[in-house]
């Protein structure tokens, strides 16, 4: 890894499709995730994006950060719009109205647009078997509108609609497990990724694009603004989320689970919480409760993975 500057350019497309000049906050790891996945998808891509941070920072009229065709319609329908684009192209190419060409059709949204308001449209698109990729950029709350909780906000996090108070802990529900929900649809490819693991993220998005049928990639995207951390630490916290087992990286290929990194020993969750403003109110008791759940869930996941020796 020491000589990464020599071989990294060989791994990544040098061309930018999500370009500079967008208006994301300093240290936004979601913008990084979008940029990397755009590189992985390449030029022959059409993006349908839901309302959210990435949509507003990338497209304020009359400017655009997109070098690939891009459409935004509403908050809850990115998957449906993408499935429409895919169907339109399919019909036009079959009928000879457009020349045959492999085009990646991608729907994407944040965690709110995926796990909450967009879940129905996403489930429909996955079930119908469209040849498309769906990417969830999960920053664990409605950051664009002011850090309100979503069903993807982790247990214990303080947000503007799940504030920690004298009698409340903050978010009192466990993070909705979106990758498992999509895996239950029986789609051929599901993966989790994190923008702190750039090479892995790019490879997974490439695999998703090469999949025939629906593919889903869930990317943990650290949000310094909403997580209340310094902007220069976004990458570090992404790594800690993975190393602590809070956000394990894995793939589900045709129903078979593969763990991406197997850590012999997980970093304690308290190390991940430390320094994050959204968790600073957590008591030792709450941390212990979360640690127990994280360890159990990690073991359950490992037990499912075929590449782990039992």
């Amino acid at each position, binding site marked *: 890894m020491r000589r990464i500057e020599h071989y990294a350019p060989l791994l990544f497309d040098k061309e930018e499709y999500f370009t500079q000049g967008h208006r994301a906050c300093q240290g936004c790891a979601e913008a990084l995730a979008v940029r990397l996945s755009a590189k992985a998808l390449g030029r022959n891509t059409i993006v349908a994006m839901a309302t959210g941070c990435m949509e507003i920072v990338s497209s304020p009229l009359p400017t655009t950060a997109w070098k690939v065709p891009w459409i935004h*319609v509403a908050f809850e329908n990115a998957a449906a719009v993408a499935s429409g684009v895919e169907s339109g192209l399919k019909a036009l190419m079959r009928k000879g*109205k457009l020349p045959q060409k492999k085009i990646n059709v991608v729907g994407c949204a944040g965690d709110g647009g995926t796990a909450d308001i967009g879940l129905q449209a996403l489930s429909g698109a996955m079930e119908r078997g469209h040849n498309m990729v769906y990417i969830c950029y999960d920053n664990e709350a409605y950051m664009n509108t002011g850090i309100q909780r979503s069903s993807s906000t982790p247990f214990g996090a303080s947000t503007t609609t799940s504030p920690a108070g004298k009698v409340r802990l903050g978010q009192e529900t466990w993070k909705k497990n979106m990758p498992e929900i999509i895996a239950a649809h029986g789609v051929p490819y599901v993966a989790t990724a994190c923008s702190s693991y750039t090479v892995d993220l790019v490879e997974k998005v490439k695999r998703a694009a090469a999949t025939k049928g629906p593919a889903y990639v869930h990317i943990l995207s650290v949000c310094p603004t909403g997580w209340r951390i310094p902007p220069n630490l976004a990458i570090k916290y992404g790594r800690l989320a993975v190393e602590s087992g809070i956000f394990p990286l894995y793939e589900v290929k045709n129903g078979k689970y593969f763990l991406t990194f197997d850590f012999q020993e997980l970093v304690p969750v308290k190390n991940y919480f430390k320094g994050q403003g959204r968790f600073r109110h957590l008591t030792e008791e709450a941390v212990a409760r979360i640690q127990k759940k994280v360890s159990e869930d990690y073991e359950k996941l490992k037990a499912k993975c075929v590449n782990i020796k039992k």
Partner: protein
Amino acid sequence: MTESAKKKVGIEVSLAVAEAVKQCDADVISAYPITPQTHIVEHLSELVANGELDAEFIPVESEHSAMSVCAGSSAAGARTFTATASQGLALMAEIVYCVSALRLPIVMVVANRSLNSPLSIWNDHGDVMMVRDSGWVQIFVENGQEAYDHIFWCFRVGEDRKVMHPVMLNMDGFIVTHVVEPIEFWSQEMVKKFLPPFQPLHRLHPDKPVTMGAFGPPEIFTECKVAQEHALVSCMPVIEKAWDELYEVCGRKYSAVEKYRADDAKTLLVTMGCLGETARVAIDELREAGEEVGLVSLRLWRPFPFSQFKAAVKNAENLIVIDRAVVFGGVGGPVALELKAALYSEAKRPRITNFIAGLASRDVQPEDFKQMFARAKKKLADGRDDEFEIYGVRG
């Protein structure tokens, strides 16, 4: 026009509409089957299943996704169709507004039906009035032949590069959609002559990347809306030309404002949709009884045909507007409100009485029009013509 094309076939209107969509060679049809649907999309899925229509039929999980799929496929440059009604239209309303601003020429049939609650599946215009201001080209038809003919017209107008707007064809639920009517079908040569292939101005394609549906900060939002309003209003010449050419192709003459025995009438009934056909019967009977009465039936609802409407009513002293929807807490039905506003600045304007009738398919017969005519006369005599009335309330 060939003789074979002139032959009439007895067919359920919904099925005839689906046949027209097939003849237009639609590429993508997306629909949700309930909330509620008609036989239009059922028949289209059958045509696709039998290989009679080469299209992607996308049976989505909701009406909201139906319109969202249409947005995506139309943006990709595919000829796109959907149909809906009442609750389904309500659910998709958000995206109905989006696609007109995105200038996507989707064609949608709305089988006009009541909105809940109480639950009703029957006919009135309560559903479509909710999306009146959504920026779509909107027309109403009176019968099955008009519905069939106008499917070709809708694609032709919407896809015209000077228009590039979604087009909504309203037909009264059940009263038109579910009846068997004699329909004169078009031959494929006629379709080819009237409807050119869809060639979008922009499409989502990597060969020429575009950004669609961007974020509009306050510095530019007003200008976007001005452009949208300008685009909708200025498509009137294309609309008129399409009707002229439709006449040349099939021999039926349609216009934005239809008139019946109207030119010398002192009193004009004003309807929209299939009530117009019944009103004609009543007008004939009233004429025989010596009343100077005629009919104006609105076909084009958006963009509103101000000049054509003003010309049609310029000699009338009284208008009796029969609405099929309620504007709760308002001063009349939606059509009456529109017409009052349209005529307000005229130096010489007719007096307008307004009835709301035919909610949830309650039958409106020729006798009812005569009753409304008589009541309007009395209201005018009493100076109470500004009060609207929901007609035919029991008890």
